[in-house]
């Protein structure tokens, strides 16, 4: 999941395709120019355990360097809010919240913190530390890259990651295929870069919630 969510950090990059570099490299290297992002997404999980895929809509707000809000479900079933080093994982339906901290070493004890630990890096070298690029292709305004996570634990679960994006534009979708044949796909729409986002988006009123410290 950390690997899958890590890809979100590249979801909103816009770049011109550099002629002398691989498409994914050029695309990754442009992400540092992003100051803020809002987007809608649909998360589709086609598990072997399910007869038919489950699709869930969601929304994401990000302001560099470290403000983030992700809502999964409409109405939201899970909300992640990060401000600086503090991260809240909220379940509004259950009136529960867990509080985590992203420490100086980037140590994370909850998968949500991987998602909240934006940005993951603004260089291709950092991208390569996380992913091995197996193949790339460009077809008109659509490009794709097949990746493998370098993390051994993730690699033991994930067969392949596929990144679909517009060269010089945003990420369109990414898909993870697990070793048991399950597929998890995220498709993005209504991506807006560098628009002003109200600070209140990154606040959450926890009155009436049971808040625990995550371990």
């Amino acid at each position: 999941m950390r690997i899958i969510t890590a890809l979100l950090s590249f979801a909103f990059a816009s770049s011109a395709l550099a002629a002398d570099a691989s498409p994914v490299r050029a695309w990754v290297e442009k992400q540092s120019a992003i100051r803020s992002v809002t987007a809608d997404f649909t998360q589709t999980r086609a598990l072997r355990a399910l007869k038919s895929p489950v699709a869930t809509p969601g929304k994401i707000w990000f302001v560099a360097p470290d403000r983030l809000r992700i809502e999964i479900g409409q109405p939201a079933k899970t909300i992640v809010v990060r401000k600086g080093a503090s991260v809240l994982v909220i379940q509004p339906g259950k009136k529960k919240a867990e509080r985590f901290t992203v420490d100086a070493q980037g140590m994370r004890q909850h998968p949500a913190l991987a998602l909240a630990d934006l940005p993951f890096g603004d260089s291709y070298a950092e991208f390569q530390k996380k992913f091995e690029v197996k193949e790339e292709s460009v077809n008109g305004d659509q490009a794709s890259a097949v990746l493998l996570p370098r993390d051994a634990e993730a690699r033991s679960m994930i067969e392949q990651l596929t990144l679909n994006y517009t060269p010089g534009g945003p990420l369109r979708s990414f898909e993870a295929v697990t070793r048991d044949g399950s597929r998890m796909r995220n498709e993005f729409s209504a991506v807006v870069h560098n628009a002003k986002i109200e600070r209140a988006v990154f606040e959450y009123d926890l009155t009436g919630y049971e808040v625990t410290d995550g371990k």
Partner: protein
Amino acid sequence: MANKRWPHLAGWLAIALICTFGLGRISFDVQLLSLLPGGIRQVESLKLFLAHFGRPAELVLTIEAPGDAALATQSVEKITAALRADRTLAERVVDQPPWQTSGAGSSEFLAWMLLSQPPEKIRALAADLAPERAQARLDDSLEKISSGLDAQEVALAGYDPFGFTSALNIKTLGAGGAPRSEFSSADGTFRVIYVDRGARPNGYREAAAWVDRVKTAARAAAPPGVALGFTGEPAFVAEIASGMEGDMHGSAIGTLAIVALIYFLCHRRFMPLLVLNGVLGLGFVTSLALAGLLPGQLTAVGVGFAAIMIGLAVDYGFLLHEEARGVRTVGELRAKAGKSIFWAALTTVSAFLTLLFSSMPGLRQLGLLVGLGVACGAIFMMWLYAAYLAGRVEPLEKPRAFQQLLISEKTARLMSWLTALCCLAALAGLVWRGLPGLNSESSALGPRHCEAQIALEKLAARLGDERLFLNIIVRADGDAAMLERLRQLDADLAKARADGLVAESLNPVALWPDGVRQKANLPSLAALAAELPRLQSTASAAGFTDDALALTNALFAHWQRWAAAPPTQTLWPADTAARWMAERAVSHLGDEKLAIGMVRPAEGRRVELVERLDRGDTRLAAWRLLGEPLREKLPREFGRIIVALLVVIAVLTALAFRSWREVVLIIAVLALVFATLLGAMSLFGWQWNYFNLAVPLLLLGTGVDYSIHILIALRRGDSLAEVRGKLGQVIFLCAGSTVAGFGSLAWASNLGLASLGKLCAFGIGMDAVISVFLLPIAWRAIGGRPTR
């Protein structure tokens, strides 16, 4: 004539019997802990840990492919396949967590753990699966699948839609800290394979042979570009024991060779040399056989001291050879040399046997082996070598060049000054640099170069350093008592964590079955299993496939199987993979029940944590916990033994000389040798360790001989020049051979043994020159006069 032969025949028969029965019983104990004193809680705790969780049949194979995780994976696959292909090589080769590869094992393990949950929890689970509520459980799982953040949680919700595993609260197993993998580094470039032989190797030779076979097979299968390492107890046993065997052969053969060379240079005769070596060999084998007849195994110390026995026993041969000049009968020779050899052997044997009062098994063996060796050596020399020499050694027409040098007054003065200056320099060093320190690290006693240790350190560096943790070992007589202790430990750990003493901990309480709960839960869970068709139908209607219910089906099958033949005792898993998982943390098969957990103390709070948790049958075990109790106990113990030795030596020399003057001089020589050794250690930066702390004892035991020989000669009226010329040569021959014996240990593979050899060689050398050049002057100076 026949009457005279009987004692000889009886002697040979005794030797034959001792060797026949004793040599076959010799076995080696390679555990470092076997050298340490009993009665220390931390030592006992570590022994307990190694006995039950040391995994004597498991070789740990590490694979490193720098920067290339794919190559590492490929290597693991190839090596695993090669090791599995040869069924005589390993019973089990584990390259991935069994819960990822063995569905049957995992499901049995989970079914078994669920049986020990509180009955109210199981009742609540059953209630949640009732017809009117089962759908809510499925909805909860669907919500996790659609909006969960954790891939593992999502996967679990898919394959355990009714949420059986949520009743286990697996997260409580470990408190704090990131999870560690036993199989792979985070980047996948460092991988580990566990090779289980099945049965514990029968002795170190079998272990070494098996480890070699695995190494050969693994190296043949590994692709180029990967580095393999081998560690775990069999690798350590193979390496240390082979090293010890090499030390024994090397030091014994080396010493014999040097002794032969020195002897030949002095006497230029082959036959006496061959006979001497034969008698030495006989004494050595007989004393080893005698040690084999005694209970217990030989340790590194015992084996390493084989060389010392030879070095000490040959002294009597040298003395006999010198005294045999012009002597025609064996009776005359025994009468002439008997007093010196008797008192020297008696003091040496007594001194070494005093070590039997030590609490350190290694030292006790040292004392016993060397005591037996010296006694055998003295008896065989007086019996066999004296018989051979009588009438065969002609008097010297004129002193040899070396003797002339010793007799010369000019040389004597020069050597006396030089010896005195050496002693003064060492004493000045002692004043300037202070007493040498004590290195309490276990590495000071380990092998000089140990591939198994290097691999272990790499493993710790790449997969998380478990050496930061202390093992928590809980012992109990029965399952119920164990559970009670583990629950108490849970409470103690929680309190210690709240008080800031604990950074991370892992308590195996969840892995110890609760027999009472098993009995209470089994009927409920078996009854629930009968509901399988309804639950399958509900899950299918909610959109789950048959795959989603594989775990549920397996759990139900296990509960129904157990319920069909209810266990009379506490139930343990039977599947190999499930057992593998449980037995990493528990040992339940013997009468003694043990469980192991881990705790990492908070920074700077280790001592407090140990004081709080290490009580009764809950023990904290780690090598670094040994330092403090040993630092406290050993110097005191050595001090006591040294005093006892001095008393023994004083009493024996008083009996031998019946004069205070000689007793005082002998003690003074020993004190000067010891002070010089301390000074040299300070100057050269040598340190004490738990092995070479025995050096003062050895010096007391071996060094007193030279003073006895010199003083006996002086008292019988030999001139100073005669004493130096005749005895000086003998003593330098003796010292040369003993220094050779100890010095050969300086290259031993065991660092403790090597440091001991170095210090002893220095001390004996100093003892010889002090005895020859300073002792006679001192004897005269304090009014010593011949007794006839």
